[in-house]
């Protein structure tokens, strides 16, 4: 199809761009400079280029299996490895073991899943329960790992979080009645509670941790809503990418453990809190009592409150949609990412003013 060719072309051009710049820098500043530029670019968001490539790969595979090629666990492994590559690269320079752990857990999800779905443990879990279990386990494990690094309220909060996640995991592992509701409330507590903790934390790194927990909660929501691919993407992109980026931002711009100047001045704070609370109240008011549509009632009436609808894998559908209905956004987003990437690398480039000194760019103005 012409679009695949176009896509391939744009990816090729992208690689060409990167490659040429690297070669150029290498010629002018030697291999060290090139390496530095490369790692710097990776830190600064070049990894974003992976996302369309990832989607592309996923879809290619999805379409292939549609016409009869069975790949199964191998495919998931491939994807996981592919995704982990830049993450690990970043990890190594940052040596954030905790994150490595979390992401490692996220990455084995695919393998585990394949294994368990084939009754490897002799358990027959429904999809949703299984997914929820994985997410909760991830959260709990990572929290416990990270907990050692923090002190004070952050430590307590993490403990609570870990407890919640453990309960969630237990709920999902043992067949509890009204499974979905239990999962939902625990996830909600994690997502919203972590959000509150972001608001009141006094250290930027703690905020990042809480953001991680909150976003993991959202991933869990997506899974509960039957959007498996979306849940994984959330984990990979947000937790694997954006958060790392944030932490780099933190490291590059300020000392990690220094408490922040608490908040803005009162003249912003008070009216800000007032309007924020008002808006929240309004939205909750609207969400809570609106007769949004007829279907919600019907669906639940048909299925019954306690019956968990068997979630179908969404990858096939998404793949098809990407290649048909949503082909245009799919192509446009690659332009968008290209622009963002070019811009981010350009703007965050080192201290040298003119472009003639590209070779010195590698140092990246970093610690």
């Amino acid at each position, binding site marked *: 199809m012409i679009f695949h060719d176009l896509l391939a072309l744009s990816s090729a051009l992208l690689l060409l761009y990167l490659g040429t710049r690297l070669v150029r820098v290498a010629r002018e500043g030697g291999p060290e400079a090139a390496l530095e530029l490369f790692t710097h670019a990776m830190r600064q968001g070049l990894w974003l280029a992976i996302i369309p490539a990832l989607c592309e790969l996923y879809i290619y595979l999805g379409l292939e299996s549609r016409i009869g090629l069975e790949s199964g666990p191998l495919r998931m492994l491939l994807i996981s490895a592919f995704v982990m590559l830049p993450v690990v690269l970043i990890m190594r320079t940052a040596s954030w073991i905790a994150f490595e752990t979390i992401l490692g857990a996220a990455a084995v999800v695919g393998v585990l899943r394949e294994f368990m779905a084939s009754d490897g443990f002799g358990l027959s879990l429904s999809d949703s329960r299984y997914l929820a279990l994985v997410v909760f386990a991830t959260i709990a494990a990572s929290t416990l790992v990270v907990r050692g690094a923090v002190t004070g309220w952050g430590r307590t909060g993490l403990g609570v979080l870990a407890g919640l996640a453990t309960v969630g995991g237990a709920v999902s592992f043992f067949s509890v009645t009204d499974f979905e509701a239990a999962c939902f409330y625990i996830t909600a507590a994690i*997502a919203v509670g972590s959000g509150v903790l972001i*608001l009141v934390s006094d250290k930027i790194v703690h905020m990042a941790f809480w953001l991680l927990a909150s976003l993991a909660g959202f991933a869990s929501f997506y899974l509960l809503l039957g959007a498996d691919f979306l849940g994984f993407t959330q984990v990979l992109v947000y937790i694997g990418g954006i958060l790392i980026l944030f932490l780099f931002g933190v490291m590059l711009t300020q000392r990690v453990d220094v408490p922040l100047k608490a908040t803005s001045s009162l003249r912003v704070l008070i009216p800000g809190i007032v309007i924020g609370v008002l808006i929240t109240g309004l939205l909750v008011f609207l969400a809570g009592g609106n007769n949004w549509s007829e279907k919600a009632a019907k669906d639940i009436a048909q299925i019954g409150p306690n019956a968990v609808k068997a979630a179908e894998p969404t990858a096939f559908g998404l793949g098809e949609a990407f290649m048909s209905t949503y082909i245009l956004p799919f192509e446009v987003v690659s332009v968008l990412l290209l622009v963002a990437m070019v811009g981010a690398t350009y703007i965050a480039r080192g201290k040298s003013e003119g472009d003639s000194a590209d070779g010195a760019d590698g140092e990246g103005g970093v610690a």
Partner: protein
Amino acid sequence: MSGSFGTCFNTLGGLLAQASTPAAEAASSGVGLQHYLVISALVFGLGLLIIITRRSTIAVLMGIELLLNSAGLNFVAFAKYSAGTDPLDGQIVTLFVIVIAAAEAALALAIALNIFNSINSVELDDAHSLKG
């Protein structure tokens, strides 16, 4: 356990709504659309509060991520529960929102780094030379 949670939730919803709608009644013991919407509204509010009250650029960016996530959750929840919709529609929108958010965050951080190189700070309050 679920009972107590559910009661709390429905009491809240009932207070807000003054009368529960059929959808809420049908889902009284389960999780329905409104539950997700309330969560997303709460997170949206939290995001706004973070944006307004925290001074660090990076914290503000985290707030923006929360806003975008709450919008995404809305899309997915509506897609699952609303009439006549293909669930995949909402998911795809959210997928793109995530990707766009990533691009935006990367760029914003690059810009924050850039201003750090100029004024040696990423506090928003320190960047106010343009005014009037």
